[in-house]
């Protein structure tokens, strides 16, 4: 046996082993177990509002079947490879005997191309049918989503046609025109008319697509201009790692909010005078603390750390020892000092900026309005069916992206730059549950990498009737006022012209 053949055999064997291993492995993770394993596993980075992986959903017969089919495909592929390996090797032997190596290998490859074409198309069609069922198409829960879906369908149809034609030609040419010693290829270097035709056709098709795309795009991004009238405005606030919704209170106005005002008790940084005053005091205290630490850095602070270290050493707690040692090093090499000085500078700047607002009469009046006093802060977003809704996005820290796949809506949430998305939900959660299953909920997902828990940053969205939204709002917190008893809370709204004027003002959102 020649060495290459041996190598191939070994390789085939290795494949079989790997494959068996993989099968065993996945058998042991029968998907239905996942939930329990997962819940037991300790994951410190996972937020508290965990949604358990639903075992009921995991085990449907369809799903089991899909899984089986996937495995069958895989087995098939591997078998095909083994056959191929053998065929190619046989060709090598005949090559030795006949000296016509190219031709034989060529033949094998030519047939594999044909096979690949057939199986490939079968696979693609299988995907279209089976996984195609799972995609979000023609089931949109928003008004513009219908236009979106039709744009998508047109593109899908056109590109699929091109896909099947061109791939077919590619593989069939490879099959038909494989090498033959007795044949000579056609010397055919160009044909201007042909080239003009196939420049022109894509150009026309793309023109159609781009014009329609333009229409669709305009109707989505300029929704406010397209739909005159009342718009319900909700602020959607993103932070590492979660979302909050802010609704206007009784006055129907969202108050001013600013990152400078954010504190432990004022998570969204609303312009509430008492909160901001408390923050100023807190900042000053922290500065004083930091200054004290700096003064005692090389005396009491260092001594304290040394003592901690000794204590940890006593009980042989190596982990704490390591981290304490790091702190000691930081003190010794000046890192800690730099850090403290930086922190003081940062806080002084913050105070300065807050005071700049407070001391400017005009700014003060426009910032600290009663509007922020009765704003409602919620852990869920409730919106009314068939009403026009604008989400005003604000980020506390870094870029996030708010994605509502079922509404065909997405917009980045950028610190220092207000963004928004306007749409009209057309299907209530209850209606959607009928369509997608009893467990279904709408979610807004984070879709811009934002750190360690990016994969678990979502907020529930509920679509219901206006009356239900109003009722729900009454149950929500207004952190800075006592809730007025039984006073009716009107829908949160402002009108569109006011909105656009305001986007320029970075901090203020009404």
């Amino acid at each position, binding site marked *: 046996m020649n060495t290459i053949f041996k190598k191939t055999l070994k390789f085939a064997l290795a494949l079989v082993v790997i494959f068996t291993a993989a099968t065993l492995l996945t058998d042991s993770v029968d998907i239905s177990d996942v939930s329990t394993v997962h819940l037991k596993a300790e994951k410190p980075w996972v937020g508290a509002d965990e949604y358990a992986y639903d075992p009921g959903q995991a085990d449907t017969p369809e799903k089991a079947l899909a899984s089986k089919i996937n495995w069958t495909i895989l087995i098939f592929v591997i078998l095909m490879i083994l056959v191929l390996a053998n065929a190619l090797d046989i060709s090598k032997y005949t090559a030795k005997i006949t000296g016509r190596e190219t031709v034989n290998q060529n033949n094998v490859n030519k047939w594999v191309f044909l096979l690949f074409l057939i199986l490939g198309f079968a696979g693609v069609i299988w995907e279209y049918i089976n996984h195609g069922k799972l995609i979000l198409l023609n089931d949109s829960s928003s008004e513009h989503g219908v236009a979106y879906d039709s744009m998508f369908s047109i593109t899908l149809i056109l590109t699929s046609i091109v896909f099947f034609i061109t791939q077919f030609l590619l593989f069939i040419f490879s099959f038909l025109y494989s090498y033959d010693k007795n044949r000579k290829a056609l010397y055919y270097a160009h044909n201007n008319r042909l080239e003009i035709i196939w420049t022109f056709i894509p150009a026309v098709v793309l023109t159609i697509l781009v014009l329609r795309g333009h229409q669709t*795009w305009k109707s989505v991004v300029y929704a406010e201009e397209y739909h005159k009238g009342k718009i319900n405005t909700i602020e959607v606030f993103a932070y590492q790692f979660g979302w909050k919704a802010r609704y206007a209170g009784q006055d129907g106005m969202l108050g001013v909010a600013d990152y400078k005002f954010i504190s432990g008790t004022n998570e969204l940084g609303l312009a509430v005078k008492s909160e901001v005053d408390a923050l100023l005091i807190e900042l000053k205290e922290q500065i004083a603390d930091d200054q004290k630490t700096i003064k005692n850095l090389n005396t009491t602070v260092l001594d304290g750390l040394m003592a901690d270290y000794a204590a940890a050493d006593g009980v042989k707690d190596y982990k704490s020892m390591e981290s304490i040692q790091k702190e000691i090093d930081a003190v010794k090499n000046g890192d800690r000092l730099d850090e403290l000085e930086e922190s003081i500078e940062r806080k002084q*700047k913050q105070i300065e900026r807050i005071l700049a607002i407070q001391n400017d009469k005009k700014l003060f009046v426009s910032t600290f309005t009663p509007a922020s006093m009765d704003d409602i802060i919620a852990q869920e977003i409730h919106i009314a069916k068939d009403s026009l809704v604008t989400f005003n996005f604000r980020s506390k820290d870094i870029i996030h992206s708010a994605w509502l796949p079922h509404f065909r809506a997405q917009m980045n949430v950028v610190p220092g730059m207000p963004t928004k998305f306007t749409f009209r939900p057309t299907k209530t959660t209850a209606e959607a549950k009928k369509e997608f299953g009893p467990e279904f909920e709408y979610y807004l997902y984070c879709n811009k990498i934002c750190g360690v828990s990016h994969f678990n940053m979502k907020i529930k969205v509920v679509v219901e009737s206006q009356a239900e939204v109003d009722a729900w709002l009454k149950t929500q917190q207004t952190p800075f006022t006592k809730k007025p008893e039984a006073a009716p809370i009107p829908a949160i709204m402002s009108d569109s012209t006011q909105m656009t004027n305001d986007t320029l003002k970075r901090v203020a959102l009404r």
Partner: protein
Amino acid sequence: MSTATIDSHAVGHHGDAHGHHHKETFITKYIFSTDHKMISKQYLITGIIMGCLGMGMSLLFRLQLAWPDETFPFLESLLGKWAKGGKLDPNYYMALVTIHGTIMVFYVLTAGLSGTFSNLLIPLQCGARDMASPFMNMLSYWFFFLSSVVLMSSFFVETGPASSGWTVYPPLSALSKAMPGSGVGTTLWLMAIVLFIVSALLGGINYITTVLNMRTKGMSMNRLPLTIWAFFLTAVLGLLSFPVLLGAGLLLIFDRSFGTSFYLSDIHLNGVGALTNSGGSPVLYQHLFWFLGHPEVYIILMPALGISSEVISTNARKPIFGYTAMIISLLGISFLSFIVWGHHMFITGMNPFLGTMFMYVTLIIAVPSAVKTFNYLATLWKGNIRFTPAMLFAIGLVSLFISGGLTGIYLGNAALDIQLHDSYFVVAHFHLVMGSASIFGMFAGIYHWFPKMYGRMMNKTLGSLHFWLTFISAYLVFFPMHFMGLAGVPRRYYQFSLIPEFGIWMDVNVLITVAAWLGGVAQLLFIYNFFYSIFKGPVASTNPWESNTLEWSTGLKHIHGNWEGDIPTVYRGPHEYSRPDRELDYFPQYEKGNGEPEHYHGPVTVADTSYDGKKEKASTVFFSSFAHLFALKRA
């Protein structure tokens, strides 16, 4: 300037300039070599190593996606604290994804692909004794090498490598408290990229200069193989766009280390408080990044397209269909690629009107791309196709290019991108069109020019097997991802099992991972074949593929200066296969035919620098290239 346009008769005799050969030591020959062929091999080997690392990373993080609740003890022994109990830490997952993307895009498919084949083929196919500046060429490689080392060193810092995605968007990448990887890891990432850009610029200037100035007698621009056109335009793209990334990177370094706020504003960070930065814009970074980022995908793709043009024409034994149209398409793509960057930013909150403009120009790009595809198909039609491994990969490239290119029509449509942005659909799209297609181009190049590089042949059987496995794996891995994206699965997620809706994709995730590992195993075949053949492969003939281009006229032995005697004259275009008036089905560019003029007449741009770069200063050659830019037409 002696290299200005000169009558071709005047430069026949220079052979005697190469009589003397320096004594070569191991160091000058293999390490600090200034010979373009050796530098090309250095690029290739480094690229292959980086490729293995990049692929290895994807195999590791695919485990997490397929079996989020399993533990793999071997991960802990491999990664230590980053995979406690055999389960990848989410921060480390992000780091692996980030470095995987960075390595694949920059280190494998920019440096590994362009660096290898531009270096190898530009002098050989243009008919030059070496690059315009061999010394700069050597520097280019060593900057690349250094850059790779710096990048990989970030795996050994305590807080781990950069992990904010290969695009390293600030503020996430700018604030070390935002995620661990944004500390020292990102500093190293930025340093590595700065070094990389220096390398890319040194290389690019060289490629451009050589192509414009140092073509042999008769090698007018319209007789250049399409490989050279592709490398040339790639270098132009790099030269014009990498400096912008450098600018973006420097500003990011300032923001990170010197308290500026180019990209930062209104930030209140957990555990830190309100930052002092104000007035900057994170979106500015995205504009700057994608001003490189989009041309970058063509920097990756065009060399692969060039290589496949050459390989397909040679092995179909047919002239490439529509040579001129191919060049015009490349020119069109190159130009357009500079004005479409905004299609990565439709939903960043930038003015929707800008979105409209970017949508229009983006969809125009599809036209030259379509033309290229049709021309490939027409080239295969009625060909006499030899399925060498290189040819298999070139055909595979066309298939992947079609599959991935078509989904670009969705993503370039601003309206559709609202929903598709950052979903798995995008991952499927760019892996097919940029990732897989270009890797296939690279493999085609390696199999095709291996005999040129190492004087031996690679094993064909293993080559075919390698191709089929890789091809199948590529489709199995990336095709289902389209559907995941369309069903609303976001990318850059560490785990899907927390979101019940994504549960239905668990078995698909398993399939993808197994297929990816299958692809990984297939690459072992290649690695084995490659290294085995370097030493033990059968000795190649001088023109094993019966090809037309100049590189096959040098003989097998690598010598400084490439040709023993005079550089051959070129009499015709590169793709004269199966000419009806010839018995043989090929007609080398350097072979004088009946009835053809003794010499190519008319003004040609020729610069005959001696191989060791002594005769012409690099600067002379470089500046004279500008003169030739304007004389292009005449050639």
